[in-house]
């Protein structure tokens, strides 16, 4: 492994720890009567922002009350992040490409899993409505967008990565870069080996 690869892997691993301290995702809501907008941030272990205001609005249409203990993920997500980070540091110290590949795969799976969890939660949150809700709009579900914009009744909803989300993407991009470098080195090495072998009498 190149030294630069090791440095980059170590940095990626350390950067991953930032996910413990910054919000990962955010949902913004806007409506005429909320000129200042409403927002909600999703951290590794809790929600923040106008969660109670959003709950207050959503109860009219029978959406569940958002609480931290709704999510088992909040209890183990920080641990998963620490383990992934440790895996990265391990790869950097041990100089084994297999750790790099493992870390990258694990991280990608983690990201996909996190996105899937978010979608799944959003689906349930938007579809499983209290049948006793005051306002029922025919054929209407309130699943928030996974990423991007969606109109939900009178609200414009935006779902976007927050700082942590961008860090996660950057970490993946960084590791992909390292992977690319290392694969190129590996290929060159193999080629050199082959040509060495072919020149031998």
């Amino acid at each position: 492994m190149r030294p630069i690869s090791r440095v980059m892997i170590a940095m990626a691993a350390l950067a991953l720890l930032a996910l413990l301290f910054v919000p990962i995702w955010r949902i913004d809501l806007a409506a005429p009567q909320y000129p200042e907008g409403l927002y909600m941030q999703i951290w590794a272990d809790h929600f923040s922002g106008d969660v109670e205001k959003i709950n207050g609005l959503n109860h009219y249409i029978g959406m569940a009350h958002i609480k931290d203990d709704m999510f088992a993920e909040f209890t183990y997500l920080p641990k998963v992040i620490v383990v992934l980070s440790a895996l990265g540091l391990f790869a950097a110290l041990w100089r084994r490409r297999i750790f790099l590949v493992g870390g990258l795969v694990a991280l990608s799976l983690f990201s996909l899993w996190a996105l899937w969890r978010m979608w799944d939660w959003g689906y349930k949150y938007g579809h499983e409505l209290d049948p006793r809700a005051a306002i029922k709009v025919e054929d209407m579900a309130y699943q928030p967008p996974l990423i991007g914009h969606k109109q939900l009744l009178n609200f414009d909803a935006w779902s976007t990565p927050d700082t942590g989300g961008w860090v996660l993407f950057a970490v993946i991009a960084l590791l992909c870069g390292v992977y690319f470098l290392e694969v190129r080195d590996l290929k060159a090495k193999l080629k050199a080996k082959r040509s060495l072998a072919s020149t031998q009498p």
Partner: protein
Amino acid sequence: MNRTLLYSGTSVALAAGVFLLLNSLPGCKPTTTKAAVTGDAATKVYVKPGTHDEFYNFVSGGFSGQLAVYGLPSGRLFREIPVFSVDPESGYGYSEETKGMLMTTYGFIPWDDSHHPELSQSSGVPDGKWCFINGNNTPRIALVDLGTFRTKSIIEIPNSAGNHSSPFTTGNSEYVVAGTRFSVPMGDDASRDVPIKSYKENFKGNVSFIHPDPETGRMSIAFQIATPGVNFDLSHAGKGPSEGWFFFSCYNTEQAYSLMEVNASQRDKDFIMAVNWKLAEQLAKEGKGNKVPGKHYSNWWNEETHSAETTVYEDVLQLDPKDHPGLVYFMPCPKSPHGCDVDPTGKYIVGSGKLAALIPVFSFEKIQKAIATNEMEGDFGGIPVLKYESVLHGEVKKPGLGPLHTEFDANGNAYTSFFVSSEIVKWNVEKLEVMDRVPTYYSIGHLCVPGGDSKQPWGKYVIAYNKITKDRYLPTGPELTQSAQLYSIEGDKMELLLDFPTTGEPHYAQALPAELVKPREVKFFKIDENKHPFVAKGEKETKVERRGKEVHVWMTTIRSHFAPDNIEGVKLGDEVYFHVTNLEQDWDVPHGFAIKGAANAELLVMPGETQTLKWIPTRVGIWPMYCTDFCSALHQEMQGYVRVSPAGSSVPLDAYTVSVDAEM
């Protein structure tokens, strides 16, 4: 090694840079929309100094209990007419004469929550004579005279609780109605002392038809109609073909009595109640119905004695629809209907289910047909329920969220307010098609088009009365001003012209051309016609008189002195009554009267009027009194003294005004 250092150094710097960059972009924060006001909006609402607005706008004061008067299109506030709440500024509810206006069977009630102004009508059109308004908390209806802009009469509504679906008028103001929001048990003490859980069995609804005397404005209850226990919300009279009918929205057909926001929102449809009031009137005349207990006060302002007069009634005539087929029908209406509005043609009734995602429009013709052909889906509390499909003209699909109220223009269009989606939606009544929508800032409740609930809307504007103000004005701490917004409806598109702040919480409002009101204005009261028992029609009639512990002062005001202005011989333990007559006979020359330590308020006495302030001195000494309304260049000289002596004092009672000649 050097290369490694270089690589790691640059990559750390790079990573740090990326991190900082990302931190500065925490998500792509959406920008919020601000109302676009076009360039010429200002000229459309500008009323040149010294000129008058085109419309009067009578706006409910909400929890102020009063009625506010604005000009349109300027949005300028002219008056807050004291109606249900005391007003220390004018002495309303504090002067001895006005106290009677606020008397009820519960005693003197100094406050109420006023929701719906309704202008009196002639031939289905506002005539500028009176403005009715309801007191919600201690059920009452008031009539405000638009000649004096004063409360002319107030009637208490018995067998009612939460007087909300009131005070809407019939086409010639034969009646104004009062529907009870809360159903309650009625009758004697024993029938009212029941468990709350026995709602279905014991709680009853009730709508009252109040007759204002066309000459005097004195009000009396013509009859009440008993109904099953529900919550009545709003109402409107039929007109044209539907003249003779009245429509009331009601919710809580679940008959819930607790956690209403959930329990009263379960059924897909509640009702609009259709009442054949012509039939009710006839039944009442024929002596049908029962006299039931219902003690209530009817207070009336006598402009000759400048005093309130109270009549106390012990009972009311009640009609039970179960005994009189054809009197009352229910029409199913989705979902917890709030507004209940009849279009100018009188052909259509619009129900606004505040939790519904559509607006149902009922056809009066179809209602009559359904009644004639007996198209019923059952009954509710013994009252026939018409089939929804049979009485429906059609539904406006997906108009917005949380429809509350509808007003109309003269061109067949309706304007519905949507609280949840915070907008006004314009739609065509005949075609049921949405034509335009504009956002309101924020969360509109009622709305008003001049003449918009009558046979002949003047149109031109729609005014939004909003429930939330937030950032629209300079902030004033946690409690903000209330707000209204003026939109032009002259073009195809509604156009925001103006925000203006309002007092109290504005609920309903009505507007009419100023020309219908201006000719009625009373400029002052004629002193010759003053029949107040303590009037002094000139300074020669001023005096003081002791009646036991009471000291009565016949006092006059004219620019710029009181007569008398020196009073001696008042003793501790006395109650002093200052009967102040304003001798001025010109427009806009009120005099105020205030005395130190008065535990009530001031008096603001209009020209030609007599008002009385009761004052109980608490210490020995000299007490100042003065005029509070700047009346002339010598206003600051308009003052006097009262000498108060100990209880057993032998100072003789005397009152005088000393002229310059006498002093020299």
